[in-house]
């Protein structure tokens, strides 16, 4: 099979991605540090490192968080998503430099252990305005560390995609922690409205795009609500689905991708085994459903990856009556073969 996935290989696209990322990171650091030393000569090297890396990491986190909803809004942004984990791991490294320098600068060479100092120097845990901001950064870093450490596909397989995905959703918790880390920390000292304004724009962009993507995604997918006949729910007209493409449906909490190909219809789970990518936005290539995110493939008839691969996804029974497509939202165990519905005029009674 010529077109099968090999997600860890390097290619031109990936090299371009990493080069652009590294170039932009270097550009930021060079401009920040040069300007910092020339505009504010009294500053110490430690503060330059702390501020240059923290702001770069925070900026990168915004970019990372914006890519997901952008791709959901318009799949032409997908090339940005493919290599997002490199962006994530790099962001973690930059944030770790900030954290290590901060701990060294503010907490070492004192009368207690640096980590004890981190949590006990400031004690107003009962106050909102005076809440210690550094522990917030510590927990954010911990989350970013777990994410970076488990970002490899090895962990994805070992933890199961669902656990992995849940784990990686905690990036939003990390983001919230960092926003508070900044608001309760440096913004109390650097009171220029530009800073508060920039962070406001950042938070609004991230949350706004997520809300918009959820809203539009929700509108794009079908929500059939006709009562079930014999367990089957009427979903759409055959002609609503493009050849070799799918419609995404939400029925009884099941996220289903309904594919039309070679005069047949098959329904499988919309969630890719790899990273829960949206299979319904994929395409049938060489007879296989191909995930738009990283190219994992599944046979539409049984939800199994073609050998030698072993990934399996849930399948659903489909019928076509007249031009109406009916789906049974009861999932079959991953990899269960289903007879594809043929695009010919039948009635439910015929099939029974």
């Amino acid at each position, binding site marked *: 099979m010529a077109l099968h*996935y090999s997600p860890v290989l390097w290619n031109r696209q990936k090299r371009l991605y990493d080069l652009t990322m590294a170039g932009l990171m270097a550009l*930021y650091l060079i401009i920040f540090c040069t300007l910092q030393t020339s505009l504010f000569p009294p500053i110490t090297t*430690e*503060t330059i490192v702390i501020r240059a890396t923290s702001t770069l990491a925070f900026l990168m986190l915004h970019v990372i968080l914006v890519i997901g909803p952008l791709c959901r809004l318009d799949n032409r942004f997908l090339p940005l998503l493919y290599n997002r984990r490199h962006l994530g791991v790099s962001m973690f490294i930059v944030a770790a430099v900030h954290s290590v320098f901060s701990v060294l600068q503010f907490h070492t060479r004192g*009368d207690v252990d640096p980590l004890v100092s981190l949590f006990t120097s400031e004690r107003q845990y009962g106050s909102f305005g005076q809440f210690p901001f550094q522990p917030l950064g510590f927990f954010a870093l911990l989350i970013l560390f777990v994410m970076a450490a488990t970002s490899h596909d090895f962990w994805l397989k070992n933890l199961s995609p669902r656990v992995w995905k849940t784990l990686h959703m905690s990036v939003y918790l990390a983001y919230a922690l960092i926003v508070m880390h900044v608001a309760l920390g440096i*913004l109390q000292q650097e*009171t220029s409205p530009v800073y508060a304004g920039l962070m406001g724009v950042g938070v609004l962009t991230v949350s706004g795009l997520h809300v918009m993507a959820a809203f539009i995604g929700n509108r794009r997918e079908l929500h059939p609500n006709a009562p079930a006949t014999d367990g089957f729910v009427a979903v759409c007209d055959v002609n609503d689905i493009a050849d070799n493409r799918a419609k995404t449906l939400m029925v009884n909490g099941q996220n289903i991708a309904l594919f039309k190909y070679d005069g047949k219809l098959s329904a499988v789970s919309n969630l890719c085994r790899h990273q829960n990518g949206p299979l319904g936005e994929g395409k049938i290539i060489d007879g296989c459903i191909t995930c738009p995110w990283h190219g994992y493939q599944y046979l539409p008839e049984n939800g199994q990856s073609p050998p030698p691969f072993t990934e399996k996804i849930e399948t659903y029974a489909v019928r076509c009556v007249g031009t109406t497509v009916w789906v049974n939202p009861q999932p079959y165990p991953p990899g269960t073969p289903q007879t594809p519905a043929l695009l010919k005029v039948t009635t439910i009674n015929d099939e029974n």
Partner: protein
Amino acid sequence: MKTDHTGEPPDFYIGWQEKAPPTYARPVRWVVLLLVVLVPAMACLLVWQQRGFSDAVFEYGQLTMLEGQLIREPVPFLRVPVKNSPPDAPLFERILLIGYGKHGAEATIRQWEARYGSLHNKKIGVRGTLIYHEGHAALELTEEASACRTVAPLPPSLAIPTTQSLGEVTLQGEITDPKCFLGVMKPGDGRPHRACAVRCIAGGIPPLLWVRNGKGRENGYVLVGPNGERINDQILKAVGQNVRVRGRLGQADNWLILYVDAPTELTRLRADVLAQIALCQ
């Protein structure tokens, strides 16, 4: 129809393919272009809008030798004669002694005494790193035990130091640690630095109340208890915050010492409200 190398029309792209079809490459190019503008702009804006740093100095890596009388109470100072001061009324300047790292000087001075015997009424030569800001100087005993280089009997020209009483005052300012504030860290005060100031003061560095009068005048006051005892542990909660402190003011050469009457009554300003105002801005 144009096809890519997989034979598929370029309406679908998988990240690992060698080249993205133009439909995909174009929007991505726009994103990269936007980032090429945004990234330098952010770097500039984030630096440019900073409020700046004090011109306090820490002579990092540069050791200075000073000779003078060791003062232990209420806090450790080295008392050195001011050059060219009139011989009939000699003037003195005090340099606050501070340990290495986030520690007071006491432990180091005890090490010296273990080596040289009592340093009471002795003239000592001390080598360390100078820290200074707004007429206040401190010396970090960077070399710790070996920072004390010479010990000699005190010449009679070094007058017996006295602390001149200036009466009761109430002052409002931020409790800082003089090591960071007078030069080691930028910023060495305020919210981001608070945890570090707590560490330094818990480690025995004398707390320094820094007062700004709103007209560009600033001054520092070393805080001790009513009888000159250390109150570091009692005030840790108020460190790095705006406080109002009442006490008896004393002048020891060029330093002001505030003998705080009621250290437990430090009235914290409504810092929560201040913080919220800053957040709203």
